[in-house]
């Protein structure tokens, strides 16, 4: 459809190249809003935490502080990027790029609405897992290439806990796969059609909790932010980065927060489906496009991320490892077995 619409401009190309150009444009259409969302997520975080602390938060730049993200971005852009003298320069600059790429490429398979997906591939869930697994490299390499003991310790800690929580996340995804019978994210959403009770959060409640908490751990957010625990190792793996290099780390952290929220919304909260489906309110809200519901669900989960940060004190390192290995993984494995029983007896509308 978009190819036809653009045909006056790109019609002279071969079909292969038209496909290429259209997909590059579509990638930009997804990417730009994410970058803007990241900018305003930082503002939302500071505002929400501010109100939770009974203070106002940033309110100087623009009306009610609305231009604060731009001020932050310009400040970071004009700051000098300092390279430590004995750092491994190539890897030092490769690491933030790797982290950012891992946080952004997974968006290719996220369905924003029925049919609104860049790559509607059948192995979508596996793709998400593989990309998540590749995201560890940026952190390890940033820690190593900085040639600083704090950065190395931060990188090591972070890699260890990311590997631990990735397993729990993987098992939670296996639970979703068992309920939906498909690895395609659009099919997973369609499998939840019906009502708010048909969404997978209800039959997979332990998986939902494990997935979301592991997601908080994966993104190095409080209360799992030991990789940058200020009181112990200054700022962890990105202690040597400044200016835009540091900004890339921040961009990647917030982009992966949004990604985790989007994935949780797709897999457990019915993606683009209206929460009023199956009730008398369904025709009333029929005019609302699916993407609005999807964005509302993402926003709610992002609010929970921020809420966690304002509420919980940081975990101790050994407790984090214990929670990942000895609590979450057994819980998910047990629930996979329970799901097997559900599946056999065709429990509820879900299986």
């Amino acid at each position, binding site marked *: 459809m978009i190819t036809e619409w653009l045909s006056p401009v790109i019609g002279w190309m071969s079909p292969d190249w038209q496909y290429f150009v259209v997909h590059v444009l579509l990638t930009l259409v997804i990417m730009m809003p994410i970058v803007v969302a990241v900018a305003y997520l930082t503002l939302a975080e500071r505002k929400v935490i501010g109100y939770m602390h009974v203070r106002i938060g940033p309110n100087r730049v623009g009306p009610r502080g609305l231009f604060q993200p731009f001020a932050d971005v310009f400040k970071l852009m004009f700051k000098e990027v300092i390279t430590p003298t004995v750092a*491994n320069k190539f890897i030092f600059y490769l690491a933030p790029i790797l982290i950012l790429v891992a946080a952004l490429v997974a968006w290719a398979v996220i369905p924003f609405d029925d049919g609104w997906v860049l790559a509607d591939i*059948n*192995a979508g869930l596996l793709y998400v897992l593989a990309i998540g*697994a590749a995201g*560890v490299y940026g952190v*390890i390499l940033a820690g190593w290439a900085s040639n600083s003991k704090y950065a190395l310790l931060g990188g090591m800690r972070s890699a260890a806990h990311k590997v631990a929580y*990735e397993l729990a996340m993987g098992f939670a995804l296996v639970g979703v796969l068992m309920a939906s019978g498909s*690895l395609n994210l659009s099919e997973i959403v369609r499998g939840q059609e019906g009502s708010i009770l048909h969404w997978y959060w209800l039959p997979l409640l332990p998986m939902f909790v494990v997935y979301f908490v592991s997601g908080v751990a994966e993104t190095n957010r409080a209360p799992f932010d030991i990789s940058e625990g200020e009181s112990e190792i200054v700022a962890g793996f990105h202690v040597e980065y400044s200016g835009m290099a540091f900004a890339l780390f921040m961009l990647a952290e917030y982009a992966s927060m949004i990604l985790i929220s989007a994935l949780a919304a797709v897999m457990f909260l019915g993606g683009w489906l209206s929460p009023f489906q199956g009730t008398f309110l369904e025709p009333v809200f029929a005019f609302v496009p699916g993407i609005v519901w999807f964005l509302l669900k993402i926003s709610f989960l992002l609010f929970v991320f921020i809420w966690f940060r304002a509420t919980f004190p940081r975990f101790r390192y050994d407790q984090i490892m*214990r929670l990942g290995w000895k609590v979450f993984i057994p819980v998910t494995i047990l629930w996979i077995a329970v799901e097997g029983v559900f599946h056999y007896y065709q429990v509820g509308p879900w299986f």
Partner: protein
Amino acid sequence: MSLYQILFYVFASVAVIAAIRVVTVRNPVHAALFLVLTFFSTALVWVLMEAEFLGIVLLLVYVGAVMVLFLFVVMMLDVNIAPLREGFIKNLPVGVFVALVMIVELALILGPASFGLDIYPAPEAAPAGTGNTLAIGQVLYTKFVYPFEIAAFILLVAIVAAIALAHRRRPGVHYQDIDAQVRVRAEDRVRIAELDADKTRRGDLSGETSAQQDKETS
């Protein structure tokens, strides 16, 4: 040249160049990263060949797990690469000979005489919208379920054995019992003692205040 062919040549040449760099580069961390790049390009070539399940699993297992452990080891054990390169020239003739023999053997087996397009015609492209994940799963859990389960069992035994070999409790080392730590409540640790008021303290207090007053006036 179609987009497909360009992508194939880019991924394939990146894979080959990265594989060569794995053995020629000096820094062991760089070598590990080139190996990651090799795996990644190979996975992309596999995806181009409609083997998307294998490609993604290659990423998941080798890039996501195995190479992370490699990197950990290489980074933590500051490996000195120079002694490993000693005797390179001395062993070069043997190495070249072995490599040549292997290449010739492979060429004899894999050459166009036995795998040419006239013997194995190029497979039809699968219709859009099909994937091989479902197909692999169905075969794996029906026809090949016993080999699959046996392989899983052997892996489990290997995991248990590796942990049993590496894990030992030495005497005199302090371990934290985190369950006990988490279960502890304030009442277990803090005792609010009820003490009778001590009359002798009053004299001390007044003495102290008078001493302070003395200090201030002086």
